[in-house]
């Protein structure tokens, strides 16, 4: 067989194979078509039979209506529960903020009282009182007053914002400061500064067991502070008790140290 004949034979075989595959594909389509036709007839029969049987139809409809009502009730209940949960969530968020604020306030009070009682050195105690009033309260001009031994006059012993000598002494029971200390009642005016050093905006009497020992007088607040918060009032209360106790203890300790030194000196004198 020549080369040309061989090529023709190969092409003829390819064509036959292609034709056979086409024929097979066509048969498959016809079979699928037949199957779908039967399925369609079955569905039509079922629909016609359902439509022709009103009792079944009505029953089915009733069942579906009941199901819809049940789902609607369920939906309402779920919505109500969701509202409740959202409300609870909001309450918890609000409570969280309150607890957080309370926590911060307690931290401030704890740190302040911890620092006040961390030393028995009088200068250190005064320094700590100053730090608390500057950093925690936010005061710019203020002074710490101590009542003299005769319990008659309040004299400034430490100050911030102005020279110590500029702060006037006050007699117990007279003037804003003297009256506040005599009554052991803290006073706080709703203003952020006073230029008159006889009229502080805040007086915090320092007393130990109702015995007045001094006061903190604030004359102006830092410029970024525009008023007093509940924490400030808590701090004033805390300072009124704890700063007083710390000052009192430091003074007693200092006096006892001095006495101890005197006695020791006396003993040394006698024994040598």
């Amino acid at each position: 067989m020549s080369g040309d004949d061989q090529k023709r034979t190969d092409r003829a075989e390819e064509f036959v194979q292609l034709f056979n595959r086409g024929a097979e594909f066509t048969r498959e389509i016809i079979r699928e078509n037949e199957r779908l036709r039967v399925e369609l007839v079955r569905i039509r029969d079922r629909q016609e039979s359902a439509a022709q049987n009103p009792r079944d139809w009505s029953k089915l409809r009733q069942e579906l209506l009941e199901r819809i009502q049940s789902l609607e009730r369920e939906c309402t209940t779920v919505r109500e529960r969701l509202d409740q949960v959202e409300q609870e969530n909001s309450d918890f968020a609000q409570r969280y903020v309150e607890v957080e604020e309370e926590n911060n306030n307690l931290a401030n009070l704890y740190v302040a009282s911890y620092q006040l009682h961390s030393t028995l050195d009088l200068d250190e105690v005064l320094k700590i009182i100053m730090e608390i009033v500057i950093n925690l309260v936010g005061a710019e001009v203020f002074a710490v007053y101590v009542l003299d031994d005769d319990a008659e006059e309040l004299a400034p012993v430490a100050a911030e914002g102005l020279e110590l000598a500029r702060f006037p002494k006050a007699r117990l029971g007279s003037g804003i400061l003297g009256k506040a200390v005599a009554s052991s009642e803290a006073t706080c005016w709703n203003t952020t500064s006073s230029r008159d050093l006889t009229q502080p905006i805040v007086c915090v009497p320092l007393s130990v067991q109702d015995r007045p020992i001094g006061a903190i007088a604030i004359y102006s607040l830092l410029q970024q502070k525009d008023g007093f918060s509940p924490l400030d009032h808590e701090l004033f209360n805390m300072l009124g008790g704890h700063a007083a106790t710390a000052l009192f203890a430091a003074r007693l300790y200092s006096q006892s140290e001095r006495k101890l030194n005197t006695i020791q000196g006396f003993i040394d004198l006698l024994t040598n």
Partner: protein
Amino acid sequence: MEKHRVLIVEDSPTMRQLLVFALRRLRGVEIVEAQDGMDGLRKVSSDHYDIALIDINMPVMDGLKLIRLIRGEDALKDIPIVVITTEGAREDRDRALALGANEYLTKPIQANRVLSVVRSLLKVG
């Protein structure tokens, strides 16, 4: 968990303790305290810190000088710095920010505000 090292440079022990209290609420934070600018410079130069909280008015070396020195050092210049100060004037804020502070908070501090700023600068949740 990644550990963040925080340096507090503050001369007031009361403020330091208060800041430590606040920052302890962040998980994985190690806090180191310095009591003035010089102490702060020594500590920040000798160890790695992820953030520094610096007061302005301090003995020995003030906070502004410390910020200038930190920003002048190649190895330290990227440390986030939060200034915490009593100075509330606009010009004080501008000066500190111009020197390279990232945030400027005034006293009395709100613990939540400090935490929020530190979280944001450390990029922690």
